[in-house]
């Protein structure tokens, strides 16, 4: 095959790889069971670790008796926090705060916190031995509710320890006796005066429940303490962070820690930063043997969750429905360790007023410690909680003022070129186009059959938006071999979202070669360069730019090489250029690329900035429901999901990302809730905590990316993975209200809650 460099593409009409529904590069390996996962990895001499966890929510840890476990035949060793201290003098980690010990020291902060680790060659022996460990606790008062945590006497961490990575956390250093891990404030205009002048003022409080990611591949890490370096095989979304953080903990140079990540069976924000890596690494170093820790499905309930929230929102509105002022207070239940919660509090917090053009805005967003399992990022980075509140609130205002739900949104929508709450001007944000297209697909202007008798129908719409977490860095290397084939080295993790395929498309497009000639290497920090992490729908944009830049660099170098040997690169097959230079099939051309977007940090105090984000993600959902008025049961009969993802890199994968995000949020909307008793999760299994299955997919589900281009994006593209989650919950709640006049203000939306609402409406509340 003669491969030449095609002319570099300059516009949409020229695109040959981007914009095509190329089959996923890993599809065959996955369906034939040949794809590589950490769960399948076994090393010679490997020990299995089983974790002994706290059974109390908050206590001083007086001692841990491991003698019976140690004496069990087949047990290699049992380690506690004291053993970690021997190896690592400051054994605390975390992306925002160094608050999480590798194993509990002095205190336990939630039920399920790791207290000790048993190592054995047989995982069943390790499991049985872990059950023989006894911890001695002096119990302390605990706090579980995020609003109570603001003023509670129970303090989860006596002293706050910001990691030093984020400037807006510096003022919290050494702060004592508070559960507030970040308070973010934004002030624009004068809300007080605007409320006083408004025709109407509405105020509502909403709640969301604690849920979790539940990737079908639970957390797993294998660490091999080789003589020259520590090799960490881990199911992680952030290999570069793992390398830097483990090196920091050990006081080693980065290059003594090697992190390798194969495919992931889902991540959704759970497998970020340090999860099992520090514990497994420390155990392997102390034991001098490879160690594997693989959690069970049930243990995932004690790792990372999605913030439960309380959201108070207040609006001043003119009589014709124009919103003049909005005040938002958001309390994020962060659980026992901050993880990335403080970033959610700020980076998502500043969108709390919604995609509306409001002159006077005030936001107070609080990240709270409580004695529950830690909360972090989960597909949407806090946005679905915020959209739930502001879109429900919008519809409640519309109903009170007798304005159509679409009309009130059209009146207030944040148009292109107008400033958002932070003052950042909206660019390439398809809020209005997404809303218009949604209305079209829902036939919103047409009369709607609301049903009769005991079956009533209703419909609802909701729209949300999200900023990309900024500023973050991606690096990539593109290597052209002497036969014209190409390898992309990048640390983006393909966890099911199709990034390998997208990166291959970007490289092929920039080089002007067929996508089949591009291979993408999986993250290996000895080989692939730095990437902040695979999170927040950032890879398409950030790594897309880095790969494009690297490919263009390689292309330039190839053109230069062709010129050097007196050939035209655009007509000569690539192998001939190499052959002419090196006399045989030999050599490489290596292009490098990096990307960090421009960014202006928010001003302290006001939270205002002219450049909050490199791009905006937009997602909207229309829902139709049927409610059984005799029982409160309801069916979602139709879901229409509209997103602005810029130019879809791979339309088929984009559609599955929209539908997947929507179904995940449908679970959080209708079914999922972690139940607690004194901080103990009482439904920690897939038998008791129900996630949606194929029979829960609505009979009609339509997914569409509107025709948009992100002009600053690589080939016009931007992030995709989360936008489908934004509008689901409020659209369904509004559809229920439209059908039967019952407004639910807490998630999940259950048949029983609807039934109780119907009974209350009839003046006959259901007695327990």
């Amino acid at each position, binding site marked *: 095959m003669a491969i030449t460099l095609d002319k570099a593409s300059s516009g949409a009409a020229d695109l040959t790889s981007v914009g095509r529904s190329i089959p996923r590069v890993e599809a065959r390996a996955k369906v034939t069971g040949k794809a590589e996962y950490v769960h399948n990895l076994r090393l010679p001499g490997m020990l299995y670790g089983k974790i002994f966890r706290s059974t109390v929510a908050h206590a001083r840890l007086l001692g841990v008796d491991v003698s019976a476990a140690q004496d069990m035949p087949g047990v290699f060793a049992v380690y506690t926090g004291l053993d970690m201290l021997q190896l690592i003098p400051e054994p605390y980690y975390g992306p925002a705060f160094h608050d999480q010990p590798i194993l509990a020291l002095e205190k336990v902060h939630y039920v399920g916190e790791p207290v000790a680790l048993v190592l054995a060659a047989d995982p*069943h022996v390790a*499991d*049985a031995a872990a*059950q023989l460990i006894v911890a001695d606790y002096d119990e302390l008062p605990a706090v579980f509710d995020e609003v109570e945590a603001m003023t509670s006497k129970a303090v989860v961490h006596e002293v706050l320890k910001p990691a030093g990575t984020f400037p807006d956390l510096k003022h919290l250093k050494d702060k004592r006796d508070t559960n507030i891990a970040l308070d973010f404030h934004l002030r624009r205009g004068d809300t007080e005066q605007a409320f006083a002048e408004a025709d109407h003022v509405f105020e509502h409080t909403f709640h969301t429940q604690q849920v979790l990611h539940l990737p079908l591949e639970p957390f797993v890490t294998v660490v091999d303490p080789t003589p020259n370096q520590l090799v960490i095989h881990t199911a992680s979304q952030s290999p570069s962070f793992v390398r830097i953080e483990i090196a920091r903990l050990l006081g080693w140079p980065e290059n003594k820690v090697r992190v390798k990540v194969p495919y992931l069976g889902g991540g959704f924000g759970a497998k970020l930063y340090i999860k099992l890596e520090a514990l497994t690494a420390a155990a392997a170093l102390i034991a001098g043997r490879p160690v594997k820790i693989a959690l*069970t499905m*049930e243990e995932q309930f004690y790792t990372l969750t999605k913030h439960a929230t309380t959201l108070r929102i207040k609006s001043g509105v003119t009589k014709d429905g124009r919103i003049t002022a909005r005040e938002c207070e958001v309390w994020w239940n962060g659980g026992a360790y901050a993880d990335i919660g403080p970033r959610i509090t700020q980076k998502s917090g500043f969108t709390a007023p919604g995609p509306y053009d409001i002159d006077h805005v005030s936001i107070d967003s609080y990240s709270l410690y409580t004695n529950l399992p830690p909360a972090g990022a989960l597909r949407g980075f806090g946005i679905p909680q915020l959209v739930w509140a502001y879109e429900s609130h919008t519809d409640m205002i519309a109903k009170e003022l007798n304005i159509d739900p679409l009309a009130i949104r059209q009146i207030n929508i944040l148009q292109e070129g107008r400033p958002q709450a932070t003052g950042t001007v909206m660019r390439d944000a398809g809020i209005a186009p997404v809303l218009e297209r949604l209305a079209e697909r829902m036939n919103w202007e047409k009369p709607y059959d609301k049903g009769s008798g005991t079956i009533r129908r209703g419909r609802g719409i909701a729209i949300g938006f999200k900023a990309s977490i900024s500023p973050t860095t991606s690096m990539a290397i593109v290597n052209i071999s002497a036969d014209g084939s190409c390898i992309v080295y990048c640390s983006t993790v393909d966890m099911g979202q199709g990034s390998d395929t997208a990166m291959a498309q970007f490289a092929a497009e920039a080089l002007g070669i067929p996508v089949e000639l591009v291979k993408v290497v999986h993250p290996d920090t000895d080989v692939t360069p730095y990437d902040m992490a695979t999170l927040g729908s950032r890879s398409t944009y950030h790594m897309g730019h880095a790969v494009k830049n690297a490919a263009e660099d390689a292309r330039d170098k190839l053109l230069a090489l062709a010129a050097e040997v007196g050939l035209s690169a655009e007509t000569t097959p690539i192998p001939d250029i190499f052959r002419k230079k090196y006399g045989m099939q030999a050599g490489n051309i290596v292009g490098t690329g990096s990307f960090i977007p421009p960014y202006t940090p928010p001003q302290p105090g006001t939270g205002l900035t002219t450049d909050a984000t490199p791009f905006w993600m937009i997602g909207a959902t229309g829902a139709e429901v049927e409610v059984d008025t*005799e*029982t409160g*049961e309801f069916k979602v009969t139709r879901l229409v999901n509209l997103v602005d993802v810029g130019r879809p890199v791979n339309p088929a994968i984009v559609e599955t990302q929209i539908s997947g995000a929507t179904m995940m949020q449908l*679970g959080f909307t*209708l*079914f999922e809730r972690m*139940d607690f008793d004194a901080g103990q999760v009482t*439904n920690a*299994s897939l*038998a*008791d905590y*129900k*996630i*949606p*299955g194929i*029979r*829960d997919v609505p009979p009609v589900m339509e997914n569409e990316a509107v025709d948009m281009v992100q002009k600053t994006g690589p080939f016009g593209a931007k992030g995709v993975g989360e936008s489908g989650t934004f509008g689901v919950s409020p659209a369904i709640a509004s559809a229920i209200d439209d059908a039967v006049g019952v407004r639910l203000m807490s998630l999940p939306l*259950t*048949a*029983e809650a609807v*039934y*109780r609402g119907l009974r209350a409406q009839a003046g006959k509340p*259901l*007695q*327990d």
Partner: protein
Amino acid sequence: MIPFELAEPRTLKAALKLLDADDPSVRVFGGGTALMLMMKAGVFQPTRLVSLRGVEARYAKIKKVKDGSLHIGALTTLSAMGRAAAVKTVAPVIIDTLRTLSNVRVRNVATLGGHLAHADPHMDLPPVLIALDAQVVTAAAAGSRTLAVADLLTGYYETALARNELISEIIVPPQQGRRSAYIKLTTRTADDWPTLGVAVSLTMDGQTVEDARIVVSAATEKPVRLQTAEAALRGEIITDAVLARVGEAAAAEAELVGDARGTAAYKRELLRVYAGRAVRKALAT
């Protein structure tokens, strides 16, 4: 997992010998779908498991006998039942129930005997079999006995079986024109355990209900017939008013348990509505 003995006897008689009347850590299994979950969760640690998968093939056969009754071997998988023409002829309600019973992976290995002996009140077939007035035949060293499914299930995960006694066969009597239906109600995902199960079986004399059996499950400690609700239906022509009375009677009579799927108060309201709906569904068959 602590090591245990796995026995795979070739005959039912040999299997019985391996059981122990006094030792709860010796357990028998058919498909093992429920037992494996209990073992993984650490709530059951066996010393010996006795697999019935290798015993005589006749215990996995389904046949319709001369008197019109259906004899189902206890080791018949739920999938095999769902495909059997004889089941469809005698009791199509069983086929209908199996469609949404757990999932195909479970149905392919779970056996009818295990489904009954596990005595989880959320199971779908027990209320149906009670409504059909089915019986089980048991085997033990001491001999065989026959008892009604209603008498087999004595409580929450409790049966009338001795530890060294096995179900060998299930007999569904001839239905002679009875009309039967089951409604399974889930309030969370479609594949969740039911919040409420209602099974109904009717004999009609023209428009009039001659006899009615109404069984509630899932929301109760064990599947139970609702006598006053049945009485409210007997001798009546079915109207909305009659069904409202049936619902009232059912709601008043049943002892309901609240859980994560719904409070007891809500389940009572569901039963009030679904008792009548199940009667309507039976009538429509």
